[in-house]
């Protein structure tokens, strides 16, 4: 919790004979994060070089390339294949040797045929297009070319063509841009072409065919039909092959990927003439397992030892260690930056606070239920993508929180539920809910006393959001102290710790000074404390003293940081967005209801007519459109603003990030048996 998984550094050394069993076993365990061996620089060991791939890597790679090209031709992937059954490795090996070449050859042949036919179809279609203008031409195509003294020019003109040289022409009946065929003497061709420019003449090549255009087109169309039939046959054959071999192809892809990764593993190892050695990271709880398993597969001929770790700040890879419900939020952490090994991992806190903030913004039972249904529906859609699953899970948590806050605020699609809001109300009276309550509308919107039902506690809600900000930022600064204590060294460490305390003191000093002078709802009122000097009361002086000490602590670390002091106020006030954005979504919902129901539907219902029914339908459309828009805005606003509060206001106080992802050597097998 709040800390990444604890990691231990292991060194494995053995003779090269043990290379293969060690790699196979490490791959099977899928817990060893390999530190790549670098030949040059600090990590170099004298006499050790990067290893060579295991024998057979190239053959396996070739087979893998074959399988992947077939898979992409079929459009299949691991995620589309059902993982209900698993194939055994021995059977798979045998089939890869026996069946794969035949399947690959068959598919290749079919694909080649398919491409050939498709390009033929395309060519015929192009020819048909070229022939189309000549359908009405007065002469067969062969008579329009191949003369010694006469040339034909065909094309579209803007208007009827009229040339100064002797010519004969034929025009199609179309008025806007008639298709024209001209016969001119060979010697006049260039003159004709120049003059044709005035008619914006677009030349068309005369096709080299014999017979009338419509006849030729018919021939080509028949050919295309035959080809299309062939293509359908090929698709059918491909479909059969796909259905028959889909599982085999994908499971062998998985198997061969594993083989290639294993075969190439020595490229990350350090090897001498007779030995190899590799370092890497393993979760501390699993160290003994690695010891035992390696010892077993090598029959004791391997040396494994846990290395001392000197500097934890940079090196170990980071794996989250959170309870299940916090896993989805890790997405937001990775989006920002993975925590470093030694620093606090805030994902658990974020998993709790983020949905609460979302709920505060979109506290509405109706929208909550819509989003909950949406998140449950999307689950099957994003199957296979881990980030998608995480996002959907976050949406689910947020929508549940929305429903809870909706019950507290007594809101459902901008209507109130049949009970009063608990504690604080966000109900605002926009447009009133009918003529009888018109007076009430005046009262509520103009800030005068309203009846209990329509009192909204907006100032109190804003203060509540400021409280959330104060506590959130104070916590961030406390974590800042902790991170400085663990991650920094020497003199700088103390300065940094005290600077963080200084920031807390400045913030609370300002708060106390404010409380001492202005009574604010939901905040302590210190204005009653006795005055001491110059009209300042005791609390004001206490506040100022705390503030000044805080400033001094900040200045000790870096004087320039004092320039940042005003951000304390802007950061805390930034949390008011929780209420402000929330109120805007309440307002949009209420306005939608007012327009759709009070302005369009209700007046028509009172006096039903045919036009009235149309208007009522229009009203329903407005209602649906308004609420759909507001749901989308709610997700955006409710998601982005809390995210920003975390990233900008919260993380900047303590979080450093930049951790390396824990990426163990191995694979989670989906389609083949474990052993």
């Amino acid at each position, binding site marked *: 919790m709040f800390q990444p998984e604890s990691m231990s550094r292991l060194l494995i050394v053995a003779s090269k004979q043990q290379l293969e069993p060690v790699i196979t076993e490490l791959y099977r365990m899928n817990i060893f994060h390999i530190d790549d061996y670098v030949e040059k620089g600090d990590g170099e060991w004298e006499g050790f070089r990067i290893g060579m791939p295991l024998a057979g890597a190239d053959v396996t790679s070739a087979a893998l390339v074959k399988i992947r090209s077939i898979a992409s031709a079929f459009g299949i992937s691991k995620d589309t294949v059902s993982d209900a059954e698993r194939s055994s490795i021995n059977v798979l090996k045998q089939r890869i040797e026996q069946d794969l070449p035949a399947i690959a050859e068959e598919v290749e042949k079919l694909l080649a045929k398919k491409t050939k036919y498709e390009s033929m179809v395309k060519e015929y279609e192009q020819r048909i297009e070229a022939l189309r203008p000549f359908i009405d031409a007065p002469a067969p195509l062969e008579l329009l070319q191949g003369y010694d003294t006469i040339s034909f020019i065909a094309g579209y003109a803007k208007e009827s063509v009229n040339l100064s040289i002797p010519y004969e022409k034929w025009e199609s009946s179309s008025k806007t841009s008639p298709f024209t065929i001209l016969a001119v003497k060979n010697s006049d061709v260039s003159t004709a072409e120049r003059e044709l420019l005035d008619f914006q003449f677009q030349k068309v090549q005369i096709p080299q065919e014999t017979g009338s255009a419509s006849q030729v087109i018919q021939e080509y169309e028949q050919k295309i039909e035959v080809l299309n039939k062939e293509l359908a046959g090929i698709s059918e054959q491909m479909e059969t092959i796909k259905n028959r071999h889909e599982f085999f192809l994908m499971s062998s892809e998985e198997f061969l990927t594993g083989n290639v990764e294993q075969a190439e593993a020595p490229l990350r190892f350090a090897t001498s003439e007779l030995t190899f050695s590799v370092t890497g990271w393993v979760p501390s709880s699993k160290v003994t397992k690695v010891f035992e398993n390696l010892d077993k597969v090598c029959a004791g001929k391997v040396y494994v030892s846990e290395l001392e770790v000197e500097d934890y700040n940079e090196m170990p890879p980071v794996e989250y260690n959170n309870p299940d419900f916090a896993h989805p939020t890790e997405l937001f952490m990775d*989006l*920002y*930056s993975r925590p470093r090994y030694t620093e606090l991992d805030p994902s658990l806190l974020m998993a709790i606070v983020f949905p609460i903030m979302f709920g505060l913004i979109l506290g509405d039972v109706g929208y909550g239920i819509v989003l909950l249904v949406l998140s449950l529906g999307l689950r099957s859609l994003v199957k296979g993508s881990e980030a998608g699953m995480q996002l959907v899970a976050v949406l689910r948590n947020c929508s549940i929180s929305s429903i809870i806050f909706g019950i507290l605020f007594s809101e459902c699609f901008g209507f109130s539920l049949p009970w009063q809001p608990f504690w604080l109300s966000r109900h*605002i009276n926009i447009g009133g809910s009918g003529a009888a309550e018109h007076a009430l509308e005046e009262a509520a*919107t*103009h*800030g005068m006393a309203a009846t209990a039902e329509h009192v*909204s506690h*907006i*100032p109190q809600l*804003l203060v509540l959001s400021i409280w959330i900000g104060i506590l959130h930022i104070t916590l961030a600064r406390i974590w800042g102290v902790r991170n400085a204590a663990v991650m920094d060294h020497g003199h700088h460490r103390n300065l940094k710790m005290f600077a963080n305390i200084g920031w807390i003191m400045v913030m609370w000093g300002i708060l106390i000074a404010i409380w001492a002078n202005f009574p604010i709802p939901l905040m302590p009122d210190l204005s009653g404390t006795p005055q001491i000097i110059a009209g300042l009361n005791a609390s004001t002086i206490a506040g100022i003293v705390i503030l000044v000490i805080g400033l001094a602590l900040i200045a000790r670390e870096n004087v320039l940081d004092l320039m940042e002091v005003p951000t304390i106020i*802007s950061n805390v*006030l*930034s949390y*008011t*967005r929780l*209420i*402000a*954005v929330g*109120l*805007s979504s309440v307002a949009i919902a209420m306005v939608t209801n007012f327009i759709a129901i009070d302005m369009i539907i209700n007046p028509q219902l009172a006096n039903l007519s045919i036009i009235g029914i149309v208007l009522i339908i229009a009203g329903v459309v407005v209602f649906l459109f308004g609420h759909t828009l507001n749901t989308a805005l709610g997700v955006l606003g409710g998601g*982005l603003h809390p*995210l*920003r509060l975390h*990233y*900008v206001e919260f993380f900047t106080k303590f979080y450093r990030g930049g951790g390396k992802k824990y990426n163990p050597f191995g694979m989670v097998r989906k389609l083949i048996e474990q052993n």
Partner: protein
Amino acid sequence: MAAEIMTVEVAQASAAGMKAIGAGLAVGLSGFGAGIGEMGIGAAAMGAVAENKDMFGIALLFTVLPETIVIFGLVVALLLMFQ
């Protein structure tokens, strides 16, 4: 002449109108400012994310920085209208 028409009701109504105008200006102008601020940042952030997808978190962070000012405008408007 104006003094003769100005009754208490009229004064109250015009005060309420002024409040509404003020609230509108607070949201509108601050939105305008934030828009101008985010214009350049947003374009640059898009470029950065296109170059390197890992920049998304930081890019989003910088893009939304100026929009705090709208929230302040919104809060001022809310306080004007509902206090």
